[in-house]
């Protein structure tokens, strides 16, 4: 037990270091982009006077390093600062967007993860027969098509032709849960189709790998049913790689869905981040970048811990 605690502490410390490194990278990255925030805010209609006035007001004349550290200091006190572009509190506007992103990712995960694992088990049970081939063919097709394309196709049929669900997934706090779910129905379908194949194939491969083991043969010889063998013996032993892939896909659902957000005008974090990158709004970009990095690192941490707990050999290292 003690070693697990040490391990988790180590991982967390490493994670924080990684986050700091990420913040530096993002800061340097945004600094070397052409044009500055004042120019980006005022666009083509900027006059030199207006530019100078805005630059002075935004404190862009200070050196980059002092700007970085004053921001980091604020961050550590839980103050994300205000957006340079519209003067809004970052924590507040980011909070709403993060909630929306989590909402969409949650429902996509609730549908796709069990479905992927179920389909993976089914594919193992009927290995090399038509259900296996059909499942693989369909999921590999949907992962190969760009997600905006799947989005457009589903919009065309489900929204325009059949009028079942809306094509615009704009949600707000005034909507009931039912209305929100109705609004995100098509984006959830798209995301499910996009992440299904990866998880399904990994489940299938991991379990097939275990199925070669001697103890599976023993179980078979003692007359156990195929599905029961998979459920009781193969799945628990294959859980580590499956969890890893599931976590990777969950991370994708949180940080990688900007294209889907644009197609459905979903008010998530991706679009929020892109808007601020194009305006060189460094504080917001950094805050978003850190949250995204934290999600990745956090989910990978969870994957590690689950793998350790699922495997007695890792639980008691020599």
């Amino acid at each position, binding site marked *: 037990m003690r070693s697990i605690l040490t391990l988790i502490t180590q991982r967390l410390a490493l994670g924080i270091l990684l986050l700091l490194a990420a913040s530096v990278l993002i800061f340097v990255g945004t600094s070397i982009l*052409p044009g500055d925030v004042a120019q980006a*805010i005022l666009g083509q209609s900027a006059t030199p006077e207006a530019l100078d006035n805005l630059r002075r007001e935004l404190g862009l004349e200070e050196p980059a390093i002092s700007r970085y550290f004053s921001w980091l200091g604020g961050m550590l006190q839980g103050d994300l600062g205000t957006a340079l572009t*519209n003067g809004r509190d970052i924590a507040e*506007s980011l909070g709403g967007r993060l909630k929306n992103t989590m909402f969409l990712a949650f429902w996509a995960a609730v549908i796709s993860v069990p479905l992927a694992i179920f389909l993976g088990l089914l594919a193992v049970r009927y290995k090399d027969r038509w259900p296996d081939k059909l499942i693989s063919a369909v999921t590999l097709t949907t992962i190969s098509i760009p997600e905006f394309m799947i989005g457009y196709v589903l919009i065309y049929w489900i929204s*325009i032709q059949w009028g079942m669900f809306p094509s*615009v997934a704009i949600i707000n706090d005034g909507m009931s849960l039912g209305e929100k779910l109705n609004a995100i129905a098509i984006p959830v379908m798209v995301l499910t189709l996009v992440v299904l194949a990866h998880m399904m194939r990994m489940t299938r491969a991991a379990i097939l790998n275990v199925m070669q083991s001697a103890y599976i043969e023993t179980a078979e010889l003692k007359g156990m049913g195929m599905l029961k063998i998979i459920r009781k013996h193969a799945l628990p032993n294959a859980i580590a790689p499956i969890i890893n892939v599931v976590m990777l896909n969950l991370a994708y659902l949180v940080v990688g869905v900007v294209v889907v957000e644009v197609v459905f*005008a979903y008010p998530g974090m991706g*679009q929020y981040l892109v808007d601020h990158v194009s305006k060189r709004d460094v504080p917001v970009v950094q805050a978003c970048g850190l949250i995204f990095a934290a999600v990745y690192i956090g989910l990978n941490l969870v994957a590690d811990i689950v793998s350790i707990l699922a495997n007695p050999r890792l639980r008691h290292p020599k």
Partner: protein
Amino acid sequence: MNEQLKEMSAKVARGLMTRREFVGRAAALGVTAAVANSMLAGTARAQEPKKGGDLKLGSIGGESTNSLDPALAASQVPYANLYHFAETLVEVAPDGSIENRLAESYEASADAKTWMFKIRKGVEFHNGKELTPEDVMRTMERHSNEDSQSGALGILRDFESMKVEGDTFSLTLKTANADLPALLADYHLMIQPDGGFDNPASGVGTGPFIVESDEPGVRHLFRRNPNYWDPARGHVDSSEVLVLNDATARTAALQAGQVHIANRVDPKVAALLGRSPNITIRNASGPGHYVFIMHVDSAPFDNNELRLALKYAIDRTDMVDKILRGYGSIGNDSPINASYPLFTEMEQRNYDPEKAREHYAKSGHDGSPIILQVSDVAFPGAVDAAQLFQQTAQAAGIPLELKREPGDGYWSEVWNKQPFCASYWGGRATQDQMWSTAYLSTADWNDTRWKREDFDRMLIEARGELDNDKRKAIYAAMGQMVRDEGGLICPMFNDFVNGVSTQVQGWIDDPTGDMMSGTYSGKVWLDT
């Protein structure tokens, strides 16, 4: 025949046919234009605006960085928002005339230097405060003072002094300007309580709608202002602006009936979209134009023969067909077209490889490739247009080399910096404003480096000239100068193309600005 005419006038009323089409087809049926027009007037009278309903616009140009501060508005969504909750002193009406809004009337001194605006009484801001001439003066102060970040700062630099007397706001200019009211119709100059000094982004104005929900980059919801002063505007109960930056998402939302209006319809799909029974495509020819601009002071473009060679080497008609799909009109290397008041037609310059070859030979250019910098963000289809230009120039023996630039940073690093690049202009309300913004020697955005003393003198002279015939003649001469010697290659003027549901009534194809010059929400009504 009568039945046919009735059906046609019903179509006009539903917006399925334009007035011009109607008169044309009526003439084909043997009805004179005068009779046809009076029939239409009858239909229009039968069209009483209906109250109620929730209007929804799917709009391009919204970002989570947007603010309700009128000074910072620079794209379509903030622009649409402003006309919901606030108003300017005057507006430019669809026919180019000046329409009084918060100013009840105005007059100018004989030398066009001092302008007096009588401010409307009994108008209330959304916070309950009554509009005063001081609010107007403070607004102008905020946009013109030294700390201003306003997009309107450029046009206000000419203010000398302002004062309030009773119910009149008057301002004095350094140089005479006969177009001042049109300048004050600029969308940044929305009148705010105390000029917006205390809270510029409060969203409090005198407009026909009150801000209900403001979620930048997502949606903006407004409800009707029950205390609005003008009964002719504000028919729908609520108006919502949904940010749909993706062109396909906008058209899909319109087709699925989730929005009533989708702006900036891609010309490629406009004709297809217009075939749906519930959607009409409304296009208005405006002052916006797509350009290739040369710095007349940098080699090799400091040679007018080379400039002329390039101007003759571009196929304008082909570009209107291929890039705008017919939703636009050909340019004539001047930024001014028929959408401006006091416009004079010039001889049309056409694609002429022979003449281009001749001028190119005369220029003595050494034959090295001429580099044209272009990016997708310069205007929709800019890269394709540049490739067409390259081919037609090739046919005239002019070697054009395209250099594709990233969209990010294009406006800060390429436009107005590099000697030859693609760009666009949204146009301005008046000729004076357009010329002053981009062709005056001292203009910040003189993106062709057109610096000519004689031209500047003519511009100043026209500005103070209250006799319209004389002004028109000066503007014509200026246009001719830029066309024949300037650095502007203007292949096309783009239309404003919007997809509008047939439920929307009262829509006007307004050439002075997109989305009925921003005022669509107050003017249209829903017929469900």
